[in-house]
């Protein structure tokens, strides 16, 4: 975690405002000289968490690498909304090949840079949760185990949003998607399914793994910054709400993301060589209900007769996370 010499609670947001910090501690995003790596004018939906996440992450990485950065991108929302031919929002060298191979393409770019003696240029691969946890998983694991010099960033919006909100292996239990409809005896996605890719990344004992959220910009930028000081395979998994897929209000993107963290459903932590080295303690714990209620994908749990049992099962997941990742305030 970044060291914060002051603890400042702003009403409502619980984030430290840049203007209260010393210039050197302000976010890259607050700096007028940020690179706008993913520039304005792209076609992302209103309130898109992924566009925010990519913008934050890449501008931070650009600053960390002194603008010597190349990105490989998986097929998905980020790729589609950023490059409607003949326009592009990318101000950095950027390449899209396929849905499932971003990690391998990045490996190839890194290998070429090495052989060309351009080791000051760093490589990022990025994809959504489908491109990372499902179809790109083999390539991702291969890149990890070879310890290739790539930072892979997964923007996790918990379903296949580009194709119209279908379930992925990152879709949470009970969530309604187009392929896990809110119908039948057990509406929404099944419990006991899915995979935790940050933990799987750690199992590869790669130098750096972290989770981050668009709701905590300082933390996200610090993790990207740290990742760029390390060579070898690195992984950052960023939680990015999708208003369209989640049925949340576009103006609530950061609120929803923050509640995911504060409820314990999306723990923020970092790990080095397979061991957790830090986790972000929750200053204020939120009940999962507060998070779920803002999203129509969980609306079948509420209404006139709330599904208390299912909500309790989701609360149990959050509670387990709080215990496992040590999120309780000291």
């Amino acid at each position: 975690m970044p060291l914060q010499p002051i603890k400042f609670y702003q009403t409502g947001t619980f984030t430290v405002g840049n203007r209260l910090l010393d210039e050197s501690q302000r976010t890259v995003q607050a700096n007028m000289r940020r690179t706008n790596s993913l520039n304005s004018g792209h076609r992302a939906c209103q309130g898109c968490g992924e566009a925010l996440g990519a913008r934050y992450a890449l501008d931070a990485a650009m600053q960390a690498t002194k603008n010597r950065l190349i990105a490989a991108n998986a097929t998905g929302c980020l790729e589609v909304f950023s490059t409607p031919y003949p326009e592009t929002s990318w101000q950095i060298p950027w390449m899209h090949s396929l849905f499932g191979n971003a990690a391998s393409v990045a490996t190839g770019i890194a290998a070429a840079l090495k052989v060309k003696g351009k080791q000051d240029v760093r490589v990022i691969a990025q994809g959504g949760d489908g491109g990372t946890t499902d179809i790109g998983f083999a390539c991702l694991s291969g890149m990890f185990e070879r310890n290739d010099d790539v930072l892979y960033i997964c923007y996790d919006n918990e379903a296949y949003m580009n194709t119209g909100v279908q379930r992925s292996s990152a879709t949470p239990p009970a969530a309604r998607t187009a392929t896990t409809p809110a119908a039948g005896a057990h509406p929404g996605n099944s419990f006991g399914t899915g995979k935790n890719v940050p933990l799987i990344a750690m199992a590869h004992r790669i130098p750096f793994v972290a989770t981050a959220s668009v709701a905590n910009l300082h933390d996200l930028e610090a993790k990207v910054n740290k990742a760029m000081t390390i060579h070898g395979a690195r992984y950052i998994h960023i939680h990015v709400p999708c208003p369209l897929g989640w049925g949340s209000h576009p103006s609530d993107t950061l609120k929803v993301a923050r509640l995911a963290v504060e409820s314990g459903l999306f723990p923020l932590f970092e790990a080095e060589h397979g061991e957790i080295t830090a986790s972000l303690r929750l200053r204020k714990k939120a009940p999962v209900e507060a998070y779920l209620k803002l999203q129509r994908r969980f609306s079948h749990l509420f209404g006139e007769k709330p599904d208390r049992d299912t909500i309790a099962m989701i609360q149990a997941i959050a509670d387990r996370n709080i215990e496992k990742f040590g999120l309780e305030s000291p």
Partner: protein
Amino acid sequence: MLQQLEGSRAIAQGIALCKPEVVCAYPITPQTHIVEALAEMVRTGELANCEFINVESEFAALSVAIGASAAGARSYTATASQGLLYMCEAVYNAAGLGLPIVMTIGNRAIGAPINIWNDHSDSMAMRDAGWIQLYAETNQEALDLHIQAFKLAEALSCPVMVCVDGFILTHAYERIEIPEAHDVDAFLPPYDPVQVLDCNDPVSIGAMVGPEAFAEVKYLQHRKQLAALELIPEIASEFSARFKRDSGGLVKPYRLEGAETIVVALGSMNGTIKDVIDEMRNEGHAIGSLAIVSFRPFPLQAVRAALVDAKRIVILEKSLSVGLGGPLSDGVRKSLSGTGLHGHTVIAGLGGRAITRKSLKALFVKAEMDELELLDFLDLDRDIVNVQLEREKETRRSGPVAENVLKSIGTVASRIA
């Protein structure tokens, strides 16, 4: 320098002379010896300034090559059979992006039934992917074609597959002339990419293209292949002038003077075909052959010019377009349109079935008597086929076909001749 070498080793030495900067490898029979040899050369320093990457699948192998090529490195990989199919999506992608990757295919059959032996089903499945496809007749030509392939790929910014018959070439020891490094350096300049991921001049590669421009982008891919029709003979003659031997080109005619019957084929079986033609010519038969080196682009004009004076055409194919015939025949027949010649397709050598001189001679004699069907099969055991067809007629649950056929045959080893 003249050496006695395994085909794979010779190909690897040819690749090394081309100084690839990134080589990615995933094992699959029968191409594995090539990347093993390259791994050794990188470790010993014989192939310097090269990143050798062991990947987790063929899909990753070509994807790594795609990234490396886009970042400006000369990139190479090799595969075969199931591996080529597993990387299919990346095969199309590399061509669509216009990345001059060179890939060896150790041609092998596709399952099911699983089969490690040679035919052309694998590369044929990728015939429309936008890669240039060159087929080698001998190991000398396989080596030479790789050197030409890098030059061709980089001149056009288009990927090239060099197709080498699995086992028949990859595992055969032959006398091979290894080119001198200074000659290869003079023939093949360093890779100068037309597009590159560069921090000093950022570009986006791989943008989404809609109906407004997709056809134009694809047409430009086709134009590269048309340009290759001009470039392949030029590069072959430049090669011949420098290395003092003929290798490559679009097509290779053999004893076509006055030939009434012409046999058309790809790859190593041309060696056997030429032996049979020599024998039959000695006996007074008017027969010749045409080896097609460049299958993509398909040299319609050159094929037509070579075949137009014949009375009949026999197209020997190591690949079956199930439900139609043979993919090589599609091109040959198109080249013959309006000539009155139609061509007889003969499927041969599937899954490593030996193509013998005896069978070929009988086939060509049958062709001369105009007794060939439009689609025929060399050495197909109709009795075994009929046993299975009868079984299927008698019982609903007749069981797995391949296992039934193997049972009908009995001892397998004795039948491979």
